[in-house]
């Protein structure tokens, strides 16, 4: 069954068609990768799904319900969580607090309840903190829980962002170039982690430039070029698709 | 007609203040909340000096001194702060404006002063198109027009002006081309202070100068800058004149006390409805052309 179904999605910036009539589906419990050259519209596609950008047309169904044009916080509440290509941590907060913000949709104390510090709120607060600590252990960052998020090295910042996205226990996780800037060792760790998360039952949609990572872990791949989807299928098929090869090796090959 | 004329006169001053905002905003991305104080300083200094020297010399010296103040601000508070947050610069330039104002208060006290009329006096008037107007209005309009023309020439023709435009378009690329971006910031502060001071001098005979007259000018000027699209000088001129006229007309229907409230309501409306301004298109907003 398709968890996410995108149909004829469009978005232009001025005259530039960044995402042009893109359709695809992501099946529950799979890892799907979106690849394509720089500027192909991959991040724009994520922003459209996550609600950070308003689409110009098309439809987006999540669990059979439309999330088209919803504001980001509603998309998050529906069960989609994301990371950013250029890490966006809360630099004014600690690692623990960053991850705890990730629990926002999974907790309910409102402004007034927080202000009065009701017993229910305090209990919930403890649960959130415990959950954050657990996640930090999963990502090997439990030793920096009280450090400022901005003070960490790049690899750990990515880990914090990942943990934060996971804290909401999403049904669908959008990862925008999670391996960018990581060394080989860290990338291998990441691959294992992504697979483990998939095995936990979380569906993953992933943008990545690291081909070996993509080919290793994804169940299916969609290829974007100049805003259009030019190929889709399991890794072995996509790898041998002449159009994909053309896009990656240069425009001229396509004509031959 | 009378409203229109007085509106255009004050409006042209708002336009100059708005251009002053733009000059600094374009090179640094900072909104200098102390912009209005430059006008006050120009007026005050020239008033003090003109008792000991001829008027033109006093004005020239006042402009030079204010430009030096602009230089000092840049030197002391802007140059060495790298990647400041917007909040920090807003708060800091507000602090600077308060300091300048308080220093002015202690140097000149709180009396209202004014320069003598440049030609004739309060009652002299010339007749243009059937309306009798004070020659000072012509001075104001002429000076503002001259400032706009000279600035356009400066940015369009001189090497320094072109370098400044390059800086505002892309600071990084400009420095790679060998332009000293830091110096451009200095120049922009001095330039902005100088034209502010000049505007402060020419309106002084009509609107008078007091230590705290800068704040309201700054707010009006900012409204004009936003209205015209932040960073656009032709937009600033048109918006400035428009605001001047709206204000003049509002006086005829509402009590004088609400004059500022009218302009500010306009500011809020613009900010909320169309923050890119009257002429700035949303997408070209990034492309800052003087």
């Amino acid at each position, binding site marked *: 069954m398709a968890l996410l179904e995108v149909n004829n999605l469009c978005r232009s910036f001025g005259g530039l068609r960044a995402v042009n009539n893109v359709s695809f589906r992501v099946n529950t419990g799979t890892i799907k990768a979106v690849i394509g050259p720089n500027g192909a519209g991959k991040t724009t596609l994520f922003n459209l799904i996550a609600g950070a950008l308003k689409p110009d047309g098309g439809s987006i169904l999540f669990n059979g319900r439309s999330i088209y044009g919803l504001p980001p916080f509603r998309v998050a509440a529906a069960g989609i969580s994301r990371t950013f290509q250029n890490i966006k941590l809360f630099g004014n907060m600690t690692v*623990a607090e960053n991850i705890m913000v990730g629990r926002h949709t999974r907790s309910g104390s409102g402004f007034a309840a*927080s202000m009065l510090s009701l017993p229910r709120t305090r209990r919930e607060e403890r649960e959130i903190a415990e959950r954050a600590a657990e996640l930090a252990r999963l990502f090997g960052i439990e030793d920096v829980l009280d450090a400022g998020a901005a003070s960490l090295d790049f690899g750990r910042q990515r880990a914090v962002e990942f943990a934060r996205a996971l804290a909401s226990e999403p049904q669908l996780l959008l990862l925008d170039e999670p391996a960018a800037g990581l060394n080989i060792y860290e990338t291998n760790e990441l691959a294992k982690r992504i697979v483990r998360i998939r095995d936990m039952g979380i569906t993953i949609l992933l943008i990545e430039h690291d081909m070996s990572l993509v080919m290793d872990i994804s169940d299916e791949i969609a290829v974007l070029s100049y805003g259009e989807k030019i190929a889709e299928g399991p890794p072995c098929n996509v790898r041998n698709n002449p159009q994909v090869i053309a896009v990656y090796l240069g425009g001229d090959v396509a004509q031959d | 007609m009378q409203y229109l004329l007085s509106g255009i006169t004050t409006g042209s001053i708002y336009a100059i203040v708005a251009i002053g905002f733009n000059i600094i905003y374009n090179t640094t991305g900072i909104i200098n909340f102390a912009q209005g104080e430059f006008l006050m300083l120009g007026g005050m200094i020239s008033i003090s000096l003109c008792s000991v020297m001829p008027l033109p010399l006093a004005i020239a010296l006042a402009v030079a001194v204010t430009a030096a103040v602009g230089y000092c601000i840049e030197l002391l508070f802007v140059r060495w702060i790298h990647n400041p947050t917007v909040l920090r610069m807003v708060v800091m330039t507000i602090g600077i404006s308060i300091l300048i104002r308080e220093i002015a208060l202690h140097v000149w006290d709180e009396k209202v002063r004014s320069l003598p009329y440049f030609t004739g006096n309060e009652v002299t008037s010339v007749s243009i198109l059937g309306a009798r107007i004070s020659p000072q209005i012509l001075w104001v309009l002429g000076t503002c027009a001259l400032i706009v023309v000279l600035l356009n020439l400066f940015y369009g023709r001189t090497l320094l002006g072109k370098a400044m435009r390059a800086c505002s378009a892309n600071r990084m690329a400009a420095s790679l081309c060998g332009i000293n971006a830091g110096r451009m910031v200095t120049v922009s502060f001095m330039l902005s202070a100088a034209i502010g001071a000049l505007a402060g001098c020419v309106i002084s005979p009509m609107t008078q100068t007091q230590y705290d007259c800068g704040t309201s000018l700054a707010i009006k000027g900012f409204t004009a800058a936003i209205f015209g699209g932040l960073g656009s000088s032709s937009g600033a001129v048109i918006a400035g004149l428009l605001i001047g006229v709206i204000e003049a007309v509002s006086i005829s229907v509402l009590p004088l006390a609400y004059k500022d409230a009218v302009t500010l309501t306009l500011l809020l409306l613009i900010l909320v409805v169309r923050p890119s301004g009257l002429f700035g298109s949303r997408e070209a907003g990034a492309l800052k052309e003087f």
Partner: protein
Amino acid sequence: MKRFVAIGALAAAVIALHLLFAAAGAEYLLVQLTMAAYYALVVIGLCLLMGYAGQISLGHAAFFALGGYTAAVLSTNSFTQLMGAPALERLVHWGLVTAGTDAYGAAAHQVPVWLSLPLAVAAAAAVALVIGIPVLKLKGHYLAMATLGFGTILYRIFLGTRLFGEADGISSVRPCALLPGLTIGGDTALRTQNYYFAWALVLLAMVLSLNIVSSRAGRALRSIHGSEEAAAAMGVNTARYKLYVFILSAVFAAVGGFFMTHFNGGIGPAEAGIMKSVRYVAIVAVGGMANLWGSLLIGVLLNFLSLRGIFGSYDDAVFGALLVFIMALAPDGILRREFLHRIMRVRIRWPFSK
């Protein structure tokens, strides 16, 4: 736990200052401390808004003045003139208004405090709501200018309207009897109870604010400061949280203005002026932005000194200089954040330390 220790310490300090001044025969100093406490309410709210949620407001004095003018109008003959005799009679009949005379013997009706205080709070909340919805969408310079503009508009309205006494403001505001044995007013005999009442309000505001910042709502607010985009992606309804904290801070300010006006017996338009708003911003900045204790401490200290007239004619200059130098040299404030934060972070941390 340590949060309660800190609150307890503050309460103890309040009592200690009273005893100290009483022993030194300088009880008149309690007057300025009472006023400083009312100003501190504005500072606490602004600290939540600016320090934690990262939204600057250069118009917060307007909310203080709004509370103050509501108190003033509803308890002086401005109200008598505003309503006209027939309407007043009916209101008196329903028990919503008490009749009386002011200090000059003119008829002056007074709305009882159980009604006027909610009205002041509602007025501030309503204005904050109406202004906040559009304005809080703005960022950076635009937000700064918009709040400055809003503050100036209210200032001009207070300054230019007959009902609000124009440049003179409203004086001869009568004390308000809050509870049996507790009257808010400037009478010397009332000095001590007013002092404790004002500080009880500050303590309450501090407890509420500390609760917020160390909970889910507080994290949401700070996440907006850190990255609005990421906060929204984590499910935080950023617009709503910004609005909530804006309204809360407006209400704090209005409550401060309300009681200050009864305490002082009057209010003038200067309370709504830009310089006042800038002063509150300066205090929060010096206090270390996201630092409630720091802002409270600096706020009480600076306002107390200022009210004592220590700065003389350099009053505004001092605040201007503070702004410039703090922002230039120590944008995180002069108090070591880490040190004071330890008090607040404790609750978040203790589950791990088990």
